[in-house]
């Protein structure tokens, strides 16, 4: 099996946040992420981005006020 490229892997990471990936896509992506630190970083960073944007607005309050 040919390893997927980083370009395709990051696309799947992103789409995984928007739709359910097919079984084959999930397996191929996990295999790639297991050996690719760069793409694994991107996965974590996209998740953090999601968390940050959800908090945008609410988190900018000064809690002491």
């Amino acid at each position: 099996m040919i390893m997927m490229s980083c370009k395709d892997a990051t696309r799947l990471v992103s789409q995984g946040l928007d739709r359910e990936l097919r079984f084959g896509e999930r397996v191929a992506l996990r295999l790639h992420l297991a050996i690719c630190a760069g793409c694994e970083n991107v996965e974590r960073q996209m998740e953090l981005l999601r968390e940050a944007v959800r908090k945008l607005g609410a988190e900018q309050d000064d809690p002491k006020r």
Partner: protein
Amino acid sequence: MPPPTDFRAQIEGQRDYLLRFATLQLRDSHAAEDVVQETLLAALTGAASFAGRSNLRTWLTGILKHKIVDAIRRSSREPARPDDELEGLSEFDPLFDERGHWRDRPSPWDSPEGALEQKEFFAVLEGCLEGLPAKTARAFMMREHLGLETGAICKELDITPTHCWVLLYRARMALRQCLATRWFGDKDPEAR
């Protein structure tokens, strides 16, 4: 019973903030003015439901979200304009070489959870969002801030699901690059 004057003044004091925030999402200053006006009116008439329950800005931002969703629904009924952002959905992407490998491999971020505790981080994030192309930003904010499903976003923006995923992908890649540079202190890739 009319809301007390100081409540009115407090609400009015959040206007600039709400306006900036609405503009970020709608990319249209008139539409943003409208939704903020609606939000402030709703807040005044609904003052009783606030009753010190939560932080004022959080409460107002919550109302604003609903008003923005309404505004997006209204505007999507207008005829779609020709669209540059969907053009050139080409395979070329400067981040990757011709075989699809990183030209410059992303590094891990230092203390990402700590960033979410800092107001300055969110200011940087807003700056990065402002730098996105309008439609890309709208798709992204609808998905990640308003929490709409891709199906709804496609409909509102009048694009196919594939285009929608491409816009969301581009937004995420651009934002992570922007945050890496402006907040997490990656060196400029050019400088390496």
